[in-house]
């Protein structure tokens, strides 16, 4: 018994103190992975804030964006043109979703909308693979996947780029929300649908805008994940990685998505490296969920979610 307690409570920390450079490496790996999760979680948050839809299809949107981009690049389009065309495709997709799915389902319970996005998930998966082929594709964006060493700590160039991109994207989004006219309207809609409608904010336009923004976020996420691990079907499964980030940070909070991503990324890496071997490894599938669940039991609305006020 005391052996077990020692293995769980003492030995991992001894390992950490014994090899600080390795610990820093693990931590940095966790931060990078976390930022990648945040990129996907951001798309969820944007849509949930503005339309109250829990968009399960965000993962497939990432896949679809990456597939489109790679498909265009393969057909010889210059990078800038391919990016512009992909953005256009995602905006078109947002428009189609608003017209075909969201508008007829206005005022339905959230679970129906959630199911609709799962239906959308299947549809986009089939459509994307039919249009661009199902084989694994390499996405080369000109950043080499190599590492350099700073004071004995390995840093991967690609992951660093992804982290910087995520930071830039979040800053841009924050500016967009805080300063532009559409951003203000988005925040108003997020606050209160009906009040926003009554002062003349066109809800339908806002939905198209917000799904487009989520589509652009999906392109960035697809770019980063695709460069890291190739563009293939499994890319859509990162949605399942983003869900614990989402509940940890709170569905309505952009900073929550970032902080949640960092906590999950770091926690997951630490758990995997230091505690994983105790139970035979491969814990990354569920560890994030259990971590998020533990946080939820203390704060049921997530770290940054809006306080749940209950009335009769």
């Amino acid at each position, binding site marked *: 018994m005391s052996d077990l307690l020692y293995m769980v409570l003492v030995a991992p920390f001894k390992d950490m103190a014994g090899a600080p450079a390795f610990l820093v490496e693990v931590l940095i790996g966790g931060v990078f992975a976390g930022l990648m999760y945040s990129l996907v979680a951001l798309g969820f948050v944007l849509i949930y804030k503005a339309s109250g839809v829990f968009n399960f299809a965000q993962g497939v949107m990432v896949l679809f964006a990456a597939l489109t981009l790679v498909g265009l690049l393969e057909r010889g389009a210059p990078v800038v043109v391919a990016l512009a065309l992909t953005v256009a495709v995602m905006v078109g997709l947002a428009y189609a979703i608003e017209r075909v799915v969201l508008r007829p*389902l206005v005022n*339905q319970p959230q679970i129906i909308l959630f199911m609709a996005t799962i239906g959308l998930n299947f549809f986009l998966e089939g459509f994307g693979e039919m249009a661009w082929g199902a084989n694994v594709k390499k996405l080369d964006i000109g950043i080499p996947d190599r590492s350099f060493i700073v004071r004995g700590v390995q840093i991967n160039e690609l992951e660093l780029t992804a982290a910087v991109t995520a930071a830039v994207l979040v800053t841009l989004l924050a500016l967009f929300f805080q300063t532009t006219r559409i951003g203000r309207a988005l925040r108003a809609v997020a606050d209160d649908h009906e009040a926003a409608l009554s002062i003349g904010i066109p809800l339908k336009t806002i939905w198209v805008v917000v799904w487009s923004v989520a589509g652009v976020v999906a392109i960035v996420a697809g770019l980063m994940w695709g460069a890291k691990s190739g563009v293939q079907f499994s890319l859509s499964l990162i949605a399942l990685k983003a869900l614990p980030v989402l509940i940890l940070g709170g569905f309505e909070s952009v900073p929550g998505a970032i902080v949640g991503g960092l906590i999950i990324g770091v926690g997951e890496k630490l758990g995997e490296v230091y505690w994983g071997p105790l139970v035979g490894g491969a814990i990354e599938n569920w560890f994030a969920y259990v971590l998020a669940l533990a946080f939820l039991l203390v704060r049921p609305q997530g770290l940054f979610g809006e306080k749940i006020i209950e009335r009769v």
Partner: protein
Amino acid sequence: MIYREAGQFKTSYASDQAVFPIVQDRVFVLAAVVAAFVVPPLIAGDYWLQAILIPFLIYALAAIGLNLLTGYAGQLSLGTGGFMAVGAYSAFKLTTAFPQLSIIAVFLLSGLAAAAIGLLFGIPSLRIKGFYLAVATLAAQFFLIWLFNKVAWFTNYASSGTITAPDRTVLGVTVTGPNAPAAARYVMALAFVAVFALVAKNLVRGRIGRSWMAIRDRDIAAEIIGVRPLRTKLLAFGISSFYCGVAGAELVFLYLGSAETLAFDINQSFLVLFMVIIGGLGSILGSWLGAAFIILLPIFLTRLPHSLGLTMSVALQKQIELMIFGGLILFFLIVEPHGLARLWQIGKEKLRLWPFPH
């Protein structure tokens, strides 16, 4: 003309509260159940029984279970696959450890095991609500699957990591394992789902079901009028997991024959949730309709191009199937968000007035 209740007076409280208050309904359902027991084993071929009817019955049971939790008690759960896995693995462990134990008892006990696990993972529902809870139940899904994959004890240290249904008999007839005739497995699955559907129907119209619906509709108000949220929510998780556990055990023992954890992955959870929502939340009949729809649709879609005389590559066909599947789900949600059960109800109302609608 045929379907109307004129002249059928309810003279007692019991007859007013009957499951099927109209004579025609009673006769029809009774005849349907008897026919379901007698006709398919006699005339249906192995393909029909094995590919369509048996999975339909098993998934109907799982869908009823999830409908109790999500449709009646309002707790969204994505852990169905995990709970089904608990049922399947505990049935396997029980029947290999105690070969003389009746397989019916094994199924019921494995349902109880699943119920215990369901209670455990239902505890967070007291604090966590809505989509936060849905994601939290995913923790159950991933953790349980990982556990069954990792701990070799659950598969009796089989090197392949699969569990295989051994031969077991009921009243001298082999009902599980590779030697069981499809008809016997069909009757077994039908008997289980018929009994449990009746139990579910009676649960939801009694005190328990009403407290579930009170919690679903507004939990604070329910608490104020004296419904205890702890007991009610946990009971919903427990009973729902019991149903899913039995369905999971049946899935391996009556349908697949052998399985690994892949058979209970997250897609299984979504599949059952689809059945519940397409069929109709908060409707036992809806669970049947939803299960039939979701089981039949892929079979229909696979055969469609062939019967139209089209030839296409397997990959393309798979992709088109996915698109049509997703598209049809969207279509049904938009046309009738209350599910197939609501369509059925509308049809019945129309039938009462037919052929003179005014």
